[in-house]
């Protein structure tokens, strides 16, 4: 156990088995919900054959059953995984990608995929990669223009322009 302790002293963060617990519980809740809703719809036999909830009901039940075993194996059992799920520095790195991604999708909602991609790539390069403004904006612009040409012009697949539609003046 001494080896275990020294690792935990170095790396702090939430233990893997706790994450296992929450994920299994969340899945189980989902499974129960699926089973319950299917039961409401009619999981039994009708005049014209199996009801619409017939198949998903058993899916829900199987999810719950699998989760019970997972909980028993990885949470209650003595061999549960006490190693760190994700260390704080690692989590920070993951969040430096995840949070800008969420912000990106929000921006796209208003400004569309082209302007959104430009801002996202340029912003990410400036704040995460510490590049200069000129270089970052030009790479973002190159990608945005290339996708515009590829989708709108060559393949005629229109992309989302955003609720504010800043590119409306281009006529696409």
């Amino acid at each position, binding site marked *: 156990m001494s080896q275990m302790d020294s690792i935990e002293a170095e790396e702090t963060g939430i233990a893997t088995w706790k994450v296992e617990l929450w994920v299994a519980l969340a899945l189980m809740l989902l499974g129960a919900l699926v089973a319950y*809703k299917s039961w409401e719809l009619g999981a039994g036999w009708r005049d014209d054959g199996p009801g619409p909830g017939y*198949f998903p009901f058993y899916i829900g039940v199987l*999810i719950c059953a*699998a989760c019970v075993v*997972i909980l028993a194996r990885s949470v209650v059992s003595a061999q549960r995984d006490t190693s760190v799920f994700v260390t704080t520095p*690692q989590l920070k790195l993951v969040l430096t990608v995840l949070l800008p991604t969420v912000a990106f999708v929000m921006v796209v909602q208003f400004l569309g995929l082209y302007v*959104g991609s430009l801002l996202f790539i340029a912003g990410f390069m400036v704040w*995460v990669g510490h590049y200069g403004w000129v270089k970052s904006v030009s790479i973002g612009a190159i990608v945005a223009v290339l996708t515009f040409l590829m989708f709108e012009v060559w393949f005629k*697949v229109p992309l*989302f322009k955003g609720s504010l539609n800043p590119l409306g003046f281009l006529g696409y």
Partner: protein
Amino acid sequence: MTEIASLFHGFAVVLSPFNLLLMMIGIVLGVIIGVLPGLGGANGVAILLPLTFSMPPTSAIILLSCIYWGALFGGAITSILFNIPGEPWSVATTFDGYPMGQQGRAGEALTAAFTSSFVGALFAVLMITFIAPLVAKFALQFGPPEFFSVYLLTFCSFVGMGKGSPMKILASMMLGFALAAVGMDTVTGQLRLTFGLPDLMRGFDFLIAVIGLFGIGEILLSMEEGLAFSGSAARINPKVVIETWKKLPRYWVTSIRSTLVGCWMGITPGGATPASFMSYGMAKKMSPRGANFGKGEIEGVIAPETAAHAAGTSALLPMLALGIPGSPTAAVLLGGLLIWGLQPGPLLFVEQKDFVWGLIASMYLGNIAGLVVVLTSVPLFAAILRVPFAIIAPIIIAICAIGAYTVHNAMLDVWYMVGFGIIGYVFKKLDYPLAPLVLAVVLGDRAEDSFRQSMLLSQGSLTILWSNWLVGSISTLAMLLLLWPLLARGLQMLKDAVGGSRAAPEHRG
């Protein structure tokens, strides 16, 4: 030998300038996708799928399948030069490929990897050419119970043959089925599991799941490791290629064994990744130089690459012949068939000869073209990885978002993609496998339909799955595979008990 005639007809279809151009574009794009972290065969094809909506189906499948071959080749480049597997199936290639690169034998390792990939794929394509039509002909007599038993076999073999906890495989797969059930019930037309939300009426598209789980999830995972690429120089000259080719025939036993492992794992949905590990493990055990494995043994590159490529290719056999894909990428291609208006299944060989044989012919040509492309332009592709992650990551995420949007022209799908990305990250870290989830989302509706039709035929009795020798043997095989972990443990215990004290010190989990 009608297959040969059909195949030549296929070559005639492929050898139009437009299709050849698409083939080259596909290979190059595929290698780039294979090299980049976060973009792989499955989500690369998923992102590009909407661009093919307006193409003729044959040209579209040639483009997309060539992306797949390219991605299979590309994975090896990063494994050998940077010790970073670009694709999960090239993890086993890093074990010996990277040490070889460090010793200045990168050219030799790359040549061996590409050539054995090619050999593996070639055998798999030969097998598809001659076996797939037979399987399809046989499957024409299938009714709903037979089809359901094949679905059952597919999913049971995931649980039984998969690495890791069978319960996690089951949970992940059932989650996929649950996601597939959301939306309109295809039989009764009733809305299911929508909770009154109009946005859920469309259900979840598996392409979104693929882009999120494999694309965004993978980026988050590679970010965690704080990527700093440092690789050995990539130089391949004709002399190294010729010298390596002279050496390769010595390892014919390994090649044949790895091809067989790969083909088997590809047809049953084990997939390329477990095939590569299994093949590496077997080569290590059986090779006279097994002790040197992990220190830069060329055989340790040949074995996983041959198997991965053979598995990746033969995963298309059940997709073509039965309409049941053997891997996530094959599943995406199957989704493409539906979008192009083709009905997957055994009738494809009868009704869409141009399409099927064009695809098979393009497998031969695509792999030859792929081999030439990668052997001649490795340094170019390796240069992509020297672009810093802070530039590559946002570009890949933006491409994923565009890909997710174009599937249904819906912004909500882009949000789903982010959600699937987080699920993918957590599931990967906890060893919940993603492939069964994706396959269940793809096949959910069709598996359910065949199940309900079977139940209608039998008035709700499961005995219909054993009603004749054909469906009975498939169902029995499915049950055997499902229970295989338990059976194997039972056999082991029996052996231990018989072997007595001699086997006692050896503990097996």
